[in-house]
């Protein structure tokens, strides 16, 4: 019954007669009798939240979210707004995918398990590492998990975790929380023109280091040029080399396995999700050596009783529901459905589409930088590096005021400092970039 006079949950199907029969069956006078709550802690039920019809609720949310301005976002720094093909929404929204639980009964979950197996395989190809789990929450928590992995697998007295000084605050802070219960300590190493300062890193690193973290591209959009050296330094000091990246970048940039990475983390939802206020998908891949120390869920191939190929969650003894306080992580619910979407989007693009998207991230960023650089009082890019998707712009005028002006003209950019902003081309149509350049010329004039 869905009329306006329904007062209970619209999703509980019981008719009054049905409820009466059921109460009789259980031998209770009323539903209240079934609750065993001491009077002292009983609550009167008045939250003060009004019920609404479905339509009113939709209007409410539409009205609230309607307060968000409609801006063209030239924003990146770890969260990107690539176009997600319609196919992904339509297929991922099939209720079998959307509403099922973790695949603890694999015999009725083969479809999801296969999709996650394919997701893992995608990451194996992208990273060159042998093992990828089927998701963490996001790049920041994946980084935190990498540090706890480092602590478990590094049989030393080491405690130092080295990260770039430019590391995003959200990632650094999350990492700090993840290692708060350990003896690990996070330290920043210097960067040089946005990339790893190899000389400085060499000075800093020692055998107390259990992990060195670098990102490619860096938070400023630059492409690292000395990752093999970082890998060598880490290996020489028996530290894990953890590399942060994402599936689009990994489509063309140096393969992590080739530069000695032991773990790859990052946000895989650059494929599969539109901008969603930071909701993400933690990518986590590592070498076979650490297989039994991997956090999170793994899907493996097996056979069923008729010897046909079948998939199942495996190595579950690593996990919290079995190993409890000795688990490799506390993660339970992860981001499976986002991983499904990422796998779908990657399959839609195919390798040539992914490479193309990455390469266009290089060329379009370079083109935009060149056009901005032509403007008086503007230097772009600030860093003398190759860039993917985004770059820093120095402006003579105060950056916050310029950004506010741009916002009034419909564009959002990152403010990095008093005279620096960062802009990103990912997902922004050419025609919008044209208009951005025009708007930019106006506001810095």
């Amino acid at each position, binding site marked *: 019954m869905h009329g306006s006079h329904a*007062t209970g949950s*619209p*999703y509980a199907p019981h008719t009054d007669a*049905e409820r009466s029969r059921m109460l009789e*069956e259980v031998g209770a006078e009323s539903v209240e009798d*079934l*609750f065993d709550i001491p009077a002292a*802690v*009983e609550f009167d*039920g008045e*939250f003060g*939240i*009004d019920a*609404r019809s*479905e339509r009113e609720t*939709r209007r409410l949310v*539409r009205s*609230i*979210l309607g*307060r*968000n301005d409609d801006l063209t976002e030239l924003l990146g720094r770890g*969260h990107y*707004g690539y176009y997600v093909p319609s196919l992904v929404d339509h*297929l991922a929204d*099939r*209720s*079998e*995918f959307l*509403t099922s*639980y973790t695949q603890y*009964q*694999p*015999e*009725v*979950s083969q*479809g*999801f398990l296969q*999709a996650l197996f*394919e997701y893992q395989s995608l990451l194996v190809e992208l990273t060159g590492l*042998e*093992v990828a789990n089927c*998701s963490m*929450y996001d790049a*920041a928590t994946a980084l935190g998990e990498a540090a706890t992995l480092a602590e478990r697998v590094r049989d030393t007295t080491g405690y130092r975790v080295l990260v770039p000084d430019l590391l995003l605050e959200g990632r650094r802070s*999350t990492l700090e929380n993840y290692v708060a219960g350990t003896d690990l300590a996070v330290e920043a190493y210097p960067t040089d023109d946005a990339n790893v300062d190899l000389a400085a890193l060499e000075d800093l690193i020692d055998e107390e280091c259990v992990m060195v973290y670098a990102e490619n591209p860096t938070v400023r959009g630059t492409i690292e040029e000395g990752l093999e050296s970082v890998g060598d330094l880490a290996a020489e000091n028996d530290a894990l080399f953890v590399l942060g990246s994402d599936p689009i970048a990994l489509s063309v940039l140096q393969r992590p396995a080739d530069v000695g990475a032991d773990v790859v983390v990052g946000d895989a939802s650059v494929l599969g999700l539109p901008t*969603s*206020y*930071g909701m993400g998908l933690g990518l986590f891949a590592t070498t076979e050596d650490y297989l039994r120390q991997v956090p999170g869920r793994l*899907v*493996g*191939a097996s056979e069923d009783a008729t010897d046909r190929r079948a998939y199942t969650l495996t190595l579950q003894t690593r996990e*919290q529901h079995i190993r409890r306080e000795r*688990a490799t992580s*506390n993660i339970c*619910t992860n981001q*499976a459905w*986002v991983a499904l979407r990422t796998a*779908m989007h990657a399959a839609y693009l*195919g*390798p040539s589409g992914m490479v193309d998207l990455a390469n266009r991230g290089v060329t379009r960023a370079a083109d935009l930088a060149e056009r901005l650089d032509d403007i008086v009082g503007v230097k772009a890019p600030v860093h003398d590096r190759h860039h993917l998707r985004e770059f820093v712009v120095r402006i003579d005028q105060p950056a916050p005021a310029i950004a506010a002006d741009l916002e009034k003209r419909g564009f959002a950019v990152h403010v990095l400092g008093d005279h620096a902003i960062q802009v990103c081309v990912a997902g922004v149509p050419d025609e919008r970039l044209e208009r951005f350049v025009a708007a930019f010329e106006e506001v810095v004039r």
Partner: protein
Amino acid sequence: QYEPLLSEKDLTRVEIGGADATDETGDDAESPLPDDLTRGSLELPELSEPELARHYTRLSQMIYGIDSGPYPLGSCTMKYNPKFTEDVAALPTAAVHPDRSERSIQGTLELLYRLQDYLGRIGGMDAVTLQPPAGAAGEFVGIRVAAAYHEHNGEGHRDEVIVPESAHGTNFASAALGGYDVVALPSDDDGRVDLEALEAALSENTAALMLTNPNTLGLFERDIEEIAAMVHDVGGLLYYDGANLNALLGRARPGDMGFDVMHYNVHKTFATPHGGGGPGAGPVGVVEDLAPFLPAPRVREGGTSKSGDPTYELFDPEQTIGKVHGYQGNWLVLVKAFAYIARLGDEGLADASAKAVLNANYLASRIEYDVPYEPFHHEFVASAGDQDAADVAKRMLDYGVHPPTTKWPEIVPEALMTEPTEVEGEDTLDRLAAAFNAVAAEDDATLEAAPDRTTARRIDQTSAARSPRLSWQALEEE
């Protein structure tokens, strides 16, 4: 029936570096980057949209979802996920970047603010963070907040977290991740917290006691006030694991019971879809004393807009533990949870709990397996007795229903932990009971051979774990 892997349909190699470029790669051969910064090639499936539509349609057909039938997984609260919540999360206005200026995303901030408020009211908590992306992440935030609180009070020596034996595995793991020694607490004969054991476990080293209420047997911890007093007396904090909150909506609130900190599983209590294992969201509520330690940022009312509406702003709590997620958690999930709560309101939420409890009691009364502990609320734990609970579950699949959670909590031998939720009607519960009872009457050989009416027959878990094959690359090497 078998659906090939994408890689078995096609595996295309694209050359990348300019030097390695071959004619096959056409226009893309020209890499805009120098070779030493690029990989050599990328080898992945290259399929058309129609092929992908069929692949994923076929995969979906091999999955049991909540729209397939009853899904009585104990402790998982597998409710029907209202379709309209997908529509609101898909609104174009919901698609915003986390680095947008606060003034340009007043809608997002308002929704978050209102959801904080809703959850505070529902849990009886003074302050709420929406950042944790899942229940376990919420637990970890609770643990970190407790640690920061004790540290702030000069009690950094507290290094123990007490967890009942029957608690969710995440409680143990989250406490351990926070650096705590976990003290496991046995249950008493009635299946509840053993007060004597608790007394023995509590000490000046106790940072917190983590409790689920109703507990995993579905039993309300009747001594909750005393428990709270005991924990508080030694200076500890009381943590509420929100996994079972669906039992209590509108009838009792953790804050009123003396809990200091709690998490909410919005993908359980507030019907956001489980998505095959996530994303969920695990907001955390705390009493006033703990509010300064919550993750940053939170949302509060700021001033008033020109049109007279309140404006919203982000702020960092004074003693914040920092962040536990790169941004603000699983935003799209939070939108759905907000819509669900706004749809149901006071009466709908209370009715959900009432019917969830009624359903559990009705179902238990209809099945022939023994249910040793009562009075339970939204879920009960039956014992498969001489049968193997895991085999019972496999066999239930053959009857077209999803089985309960099995072999846990271990307090009940061969446990069948069953939570029908409020969304099932009498006829579905009867069908579920019939499946239980049919299996109860069958012999071990039948159970061990099950399932035989499913897409895949019983899957060999042992060999999967002994020689892990975790990618199509691994399969190709064989």
